[in-house]
């Protein structure tokens, strides 16, 4: 009696739409998220959709930490358009905004979504939109709606149609690992394996146009930097030097790649012109110089160096070669990423032996710790500057987590198996 049930369950799991390795749990939210109701979209065609558009929109908004969606069970009605909305009902539920929508068949058998964003307090429709996509891109269509609503309500460009690169390591045998370079949508769905090796893979990073990525692979049993075209799948080995070949970082114009090489003895920062593959040495010091990060104007590079005895962030001006120290608080500051507005940086910051993600603003040079977990590393900022992803350890496993740049929102993206790390948030990929 029990066995068939288990088999049925297994079959069910097997046939479910591919749920990715990452699932989202909100740990800690903003104190005053905006209450919003995303009503299930009306759908008249009688065909069952594999994806629930309203539910995807709801989860997107929830994940931003700025919104608190109303549970469907608490909804008194399920209007599909503005005419069916009784504002008083929603007001009594404490909701500030309501999203309603309808799905239908469009031309070329496309799926069309018409939706509206309603302000409960003013009883007015503040956004009307229509999106059309083929049926295999229902999630993309939903994320588009999320972006529009988010932008309307926050005045910040939405980043729900961005992607994520990360590395997973799965133990196979005693001390052997299988390393995978993975790409997924920013909500963890649609995972795709880009590289798979028994040798380490690390440091994935996006080109500013989102068309190329660079990463480090040990597939030749030595580290080398690879350039991978996401559209053609073509992979090109860029470096093959004695010693370290690591930490690739595209310049803001995408024409150059900063990296760390130790071919001359100690690790230094270099810049490679991608068209000619010519190299220019940017730092020259017998200490460790590593983890280059470009300033948004492309005129200077931030990097980690232990030239002062302990790792700290420094900045080198490319035109003059002059170097200045940037971080002073604490005895371990490393792997900076510069905020898109150029007003500050995020980094790995050690306090009392624990590693956290911290943000430092350039105006007052004040350091604010964003995470409370330990062994936090690899911060990567969303292109709209709202959130950052990082890796941490949870229950002894490497997991990805997200935190808002103001520290108010945190959530974890647990992996189904193995250790995941080194998240890299893509630039904006769609208008």
């Amino acid at each position, binding site marked *: 009696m029990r066995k068939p049930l288990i088999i049925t369950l297994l079959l069910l799991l097997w046939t479910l739409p591919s749920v990715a390795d990452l699932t989202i749990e909100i740990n800690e939210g903003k104190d005053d998220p905006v209450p919003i109701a995303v009503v299930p979209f009306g759908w008249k065609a009688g065909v069952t959709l594999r994806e629930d558009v309203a539910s995807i929109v709801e989860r997107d908004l929830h994940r931003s930490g700025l919104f608190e969606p109303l549970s469907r069970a608490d909804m008194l009605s399920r209007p599909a358009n503005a005419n069916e909305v009784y504002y008083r009902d929603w007001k009594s539920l404490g909701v500030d905004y309501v999203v309603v929508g309808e799905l239908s068949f469009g031309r070329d058998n496309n799926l069309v979504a018409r939706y509206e964003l309603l302000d409960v307090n003013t009883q007015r429709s503040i956004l009307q939109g229509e999106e059309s996509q083929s049926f295999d891109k229902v999630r993309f269509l939903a994320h588009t709606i999320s972006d529009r609503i988010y932008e309307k309500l926050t005045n910040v460009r939405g980043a729900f149609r961005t992607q994520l690169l990360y590395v997973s*390591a799965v133990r196979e045998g005693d*001390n052997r*690992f299988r*390393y995978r370079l993975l790409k997924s949508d920013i909500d963890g769905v649609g995972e795709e394996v880009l590289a798979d090796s028994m040798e*380490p893979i*690390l*440091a994935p990073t996006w080109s500013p146009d989102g068309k190329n990525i660079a990463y480090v692979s*040990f597939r*030749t*049993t*030595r*580290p080398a930097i690879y350039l991978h075209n996401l559209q053609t799948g073509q992979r090109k080995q860029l470096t*093959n*030097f*004695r*010693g*370290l070949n*690591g*930490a690739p970082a595209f310049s803001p114009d995408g024409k150059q790649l900063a990296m*760390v090489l*130790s*071919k001359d*003895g*100690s*690790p230094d920062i270099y810049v490679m012109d991608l068209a000619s593959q010519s190299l220019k040495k940017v730092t020259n010091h*017998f200490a*460790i110089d*590593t*983890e280059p990060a470009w300033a948004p104007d492309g005129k200077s590079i931030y990097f*980690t160096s*232990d030239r002062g*005895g302990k*790792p700290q962030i420094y900045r080198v001006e490319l035109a003059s070669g002059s170097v200045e120290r940037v971080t002073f608080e604490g005895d*371990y500051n*490393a*792997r900076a990423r510069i905020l898109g507005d150029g007003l500050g940086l995020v980094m*790995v910051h*050690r306090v009392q032996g624990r*590693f956290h993600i911290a943000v430092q603003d350039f105006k007052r040079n004040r350091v604010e710790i964003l995470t409370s977990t*330990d*062994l936090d*590393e*690899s911060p990567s900022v969303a292109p709209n500057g709202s959130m950052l992803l990082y890796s941490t*350890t949870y229950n*002894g496993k490497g997991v990805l987590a997200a935190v808002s740049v103001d520290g108010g929102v945190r959530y974890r993206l647990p992996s189904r198996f193995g250790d995941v*790390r*080194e998240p890299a948030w893509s630039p904006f990929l769609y208008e």
Partner: protein
Amino acid sequence: MKYQSKLFLGVALAGALLTGCASNDTDSSGQTSDMNTYSEPTQSMESDVSAYEAQEPEVVLENIFYFEFDQATLTAEARRNLDAQIARLQKTTGPIRLEGHADERGTREYNMALGERRANSVADYMAINGIARYRIETVSYGEERPIAFGQSESAYSKNRRVELK
């Protein structure tokens, strides 16, 4: 401690400079160097070692050399173990691969550099003690290949290492 590490860095740098030419020679061909030509320690070598052990009973032939936290200087124990290996390696001619590792604390790329610094420490010590530098290749794996797991000092101390391959 600090003075010592600086001193060692100086020695390491001097070693790197001295062997710079030799290193560059192997750079182009290094990629194709055939690791298969390196033979595993044979029975006769093991007997050499036992002779060595008879002299200094506490010395065992170790392939792994451990380091202190955030340090690349050789401990007294690592040096003893290295001396025994050097005695063996002086009787061979094949390539030597030194793999540097770090524990998981700190950032990955910084640990990659730390692993290299450790491997270079061992390489320099070997070179100073008569092993031809061109035989030695160093590769750092940073924190990517731990051999002990969990967030404990005992696991961390096992992962801060250089492996002789």
